[in-house]
């Protein structure tokens, strides 16, 4: 019975890894990577490695996705600085709204 579990988990891991690679958009890839972490943790449990499974669960469930998503946010909207964009109450409403559109062209020339 253990062999069946291991085999199914292995196939699941292989499928999740493939899906993680073919998802080209990093934000969407993060979901699949999280799933890959889960399926790896299950596989590790079935090959009697609970220590490793714990490690994988701890890292894969929240830490890696958070880092990837934060990087995506920083990179795709690098110039906006996040919250400042939508003019919060009394928080530099002028920063980051028009600025990232203006000077770039001139500098590239």
């Amino acid at each position: 019975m253990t062999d069946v579990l291991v085999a199914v988990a292995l196939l699941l891991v292989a499928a999740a890894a493939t899906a993680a690679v073919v998802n080209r958009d990093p934000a969407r890839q993060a979901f699949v990577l999280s799933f890959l972490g889960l399926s790896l943790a299950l596989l590790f449990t079935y090959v009697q490695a609970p220590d490793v499974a714990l490690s994988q669960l701890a890292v894969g469930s929240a830490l890696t996705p958070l880092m990837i998503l934060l990087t995506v946010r920083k990179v795709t909207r690098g110039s906006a600085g996040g919250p400042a964009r939508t003019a919060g109450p009394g928080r530099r409403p002028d920063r980051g709204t028009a600025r990232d559109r203006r000077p770039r062209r001139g500098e590239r020339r």
Partner: protein
Amino acid sequence: MTRRGRLRLFLLAALVLAAGYAVACLDLPPFGGDRHPYGDRAVHAALARRTANAVASVNFDQRAMDTLGEETILFAAVLGAVVLLRRTAGEARTEPEPARVSAGVRRLGLALLPVALLVGLYVVAHGNVTPGGGFQGGVVVATALHLLYVAADYRALERIRPVSRYELGDAAGEFAYTMTGVCTALAGPAFLANVLPLGTFRALASAGTVVLLNAAVGMEVACGVVVLLATFLDQAVEIADAPGGPRSADGAPEEEPT
């Protein structure tokens, strides 16, 4: 090299690698086989040192030197990320907005935070007896603190997270590990030798130096991950780029190669 050329080269190399690897697989000892000379010796040594968790015994006793290396990589990686992502001249710091999170999520987060912290500490503390240890538990503790960010908001997290203290804790973990090694070298036969009393098998206080090294690693991992996430959060939530947008090399024009 063009994209197409690169892909062709990769496919060729992958084909060769796959063929070689498949042949090698057929010659590997079959999956689930019974011959594990290293494993048997490691288990024997772990039992001799009254460490119920043989994996922890390998990590923090039999191959403690190796783990010092791993820990140093971790330390260096955190340091590198902090240096890379530090706020440079010309980058403005913006105040994060208070997040509007629903009451249910907020309550869940606040209820889960102490539980998660406790589970993390439990995983670290029982590292020498049950599955777990400093590496896993440290990550859990750090993740638990960030429940405040996802369930409340960034400012709530900042209140309980003086980053400089966690940086100190990160270094202290690394220092404690090395100093344990130095002390054992002074007191006994070798660097990182297990010289402390071994205690009773399956008890929390067993396995000698494993407990100390485990705690040191737990501290370093927890603090290191907190610092790491803090730098990322700083970049993504608080720091706006230098005026002129991201293309102008952070207000340091001499570094722009074009």
